[in-house]
């Protein structure tokens, strides 16, 4: 039983009380949830003197020093860090999405003996606390000579994310009915063609959601960049932010400003890709 889902004009069903309830509840929810972020903003525009002079560290600033952002961008070198992070994140996300879709396709649509075992293997890789893998990964990269390079980090991220991505995509792919593959196969299409022309297009929404999550995750990654990169000119935003922490002294305002700048990219990606995975004008086939 399949349905075509089309956006309907549901205007007449909107009761004003419910509309009001929606807005009140949503606004309240967002306001409360975002409180810490507002404090982050406050912190980013304060001077260190103000931060160190007032015990209420979360209070609104007396003076709004927007130059902090300029200072973080130029003096601290955020611009370079942001560039590096793009260089690392974009290929990693594309790479892992693509490679994991291959594995997900295999696990979702083929019945073979090791299918379930492999799924568990992919999941198992997600279970171990990352910190414990720091040294083995460091030594592996050292051995292979991939330490301290963009390629090394990208390769690592692509491989490392395969567990979650395969698991995620396989689950969503399982919802696609076999019937959609029957026809092309009858026509003699190769499995790879089916993968490319049928399954991938149908997985756009889940891949978009996954892409946004992966982008956010890899963009915010501190640990692996730390382990795999040594030269300052290669370092991403997260390491740049971490470096604003001195041995004893915390530059709260700079770190907050830097974090906000760093948060801009995942936010942008979210805005651009959300229409792919958020329901709106959708025409798609769904299991009834």
């Amino acid at each position: 039983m399949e349905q075509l889902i089309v956006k309907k004009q549901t205007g007449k069903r909107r009761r004003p009380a419910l509309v009001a309830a929606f807005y009140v509840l949503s606004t309240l929810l967002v306001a409360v949830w975002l409180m810490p972020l507002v404090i982050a903003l406050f912190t980013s525009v304060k001077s260190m003197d103000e931060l160190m002079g007032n015990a209420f560290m979360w209070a609104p600033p007396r003076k709004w020093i927007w130059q902090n952002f300029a200072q973080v961008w130029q003096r601290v070198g955020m611009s370079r860090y942001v560039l590096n992070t793009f260089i690392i994140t974009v290929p990693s996300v594309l790479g892992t999405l693509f490679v994991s879709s291959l594995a997900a396709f295999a696990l979702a649509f083929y019945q073979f003996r090791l299918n379930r075992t492999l799924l568990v293997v992919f999941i198992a890789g997600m279970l171990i606390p990352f910190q414990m893998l720091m040294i083995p990964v460091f030594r592996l990269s050292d051995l292979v000579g991939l330490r301290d390079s963009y390629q090394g980090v990208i390769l690592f991220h692509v491989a490392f994310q395969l567990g979650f991505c395969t698991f995620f995509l396989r689950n969503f792919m399982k919802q696609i009915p076999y019937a959609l593959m029957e026809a092309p196969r009858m026509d003699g299409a190769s499995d790879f063609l089916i993968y490319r022309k049928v399954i991938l297009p149908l997985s756009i929404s889940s891949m978009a959601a996954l892409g946004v999550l992966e982008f956010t995750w890899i963009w915010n990654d501190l640990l692996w960049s730390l382990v795999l990169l040594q030269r300052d000119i290669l370092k991403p935003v997260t390491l740049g932010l971490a470096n604003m922490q001195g041995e004893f002294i915390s530059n709260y305002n700079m770190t907050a400003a830097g974090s906000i700048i760093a948060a801009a990219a995942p936010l942008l990606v979210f805005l651009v890709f959300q229409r792919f995975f958020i329901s709106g004008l959708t025409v798609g086939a769904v299991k009834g």
Partner: protein
Amino acid sequence: MKRFLSLAALTLLVMGLLAACGPKTDKELIINSYMSDQAPKEAFQKLVDEFQKQNTAIKVTVNTTAHEQFKTLLGSWLASKDAPDVVTWFAGYRMQAFAAKGLLEPIDTVFPGGSFEKEFPAAFKPPASYEGKIYFMPQSWYWWAVYYNKDVFAKLKLTPAKTWDEFLALCEQVKKAKLSPIAIGAKDTWTAGGWFDYMDTAVNGGPFHQQLTMGKVSYTDAKVKETFGYIAELSKKGYFIPNATSYSWQEAAKLLFDGKAAMYLMGQFIKDVAPEDKKPVIDFFQFPYVAGRTEYAVDTPTDGFMVPVNAKHKLAAKKFMAFLATKEAQEMFCKPLGRLAANVNVPVPNADAERGLAMVKGASFAAQFYDRDAPEEMAAKGMNAIIDIMATPDKMDDILAALDKERERIYAELK
């Protein structure tokens, strides 16, 4: 398509390998530093630039990593086959532990003909050496003292204490005025380490404390209990700020700046975070004498550099170390930061430092710091124990007994 992919992956791999196997010349110098604070970072860069000018054939790269992350990776870097050539670190046990494992390169050749003793204080040699060889190049150091708010003292008509009794009286006065006598940011456990070092050396003397940090004295020893007794007394009388464990050291410092707390046993860098208008209000005095002692010890945590044994450009590294040892280089770095240079020929940067130096020179014993003299695990657990005793002074005996069991295990494993 699949074939193309595998080819692409293979190409990437090969590219990576090729990139790593570039021509290795001894014309390079890679320095890994933890000086991530803006001011030291810039001062160090100037130093490196000067070295670069004098040695145009060597290409110098400085890689900066924040302190916490640096500590995490140092072991891996030292053991790596692509180790950096110079790394920043501190003197004391923490450095000697690496030397003991054979991960460091001795730098005696950097100090020809007894020049270490000529240029650096005698007290710096032991924490910079291991089994007779020098492995550490000292650069700067600072002192710890009891920092106090002059305005608060003036208002309550107090003067800095010289003896413990005076100190207690001082605290009582402050408490009566509804202020906190002693600020401490116990969320950063090393603040307790400072208290332990100063209290123990004041009660039992420097050499005893050294035996303790070397694991030769039990934490349940009567003398150690005496030390903790003094700290516990402060706690029982309510002289520490309430909720100390919720404050990072920097947040607790604010209480001192605002005049909500009177004193803070802290390192010299506390002035670096004071707001401009509060800087002149903060001053320091020497930790009080206890029980009629006339000698005192100080903590002088020393920062500097070491050369990994796996470094690829040892000649360049040693050249750099020799450069760092010179009076000019040391002054170049320490002067703008107001720090004390290890090289004794460097003039003192400011009046505060002069007093600090005098204080240190008058001491009969100098330690690095609890967490630099003792193995890290011991120090970590020790500092937690101190904070626990501060919070629940009645449980002192149990806490110390548990701590001592840890001590036995930790030092046994070191053999």
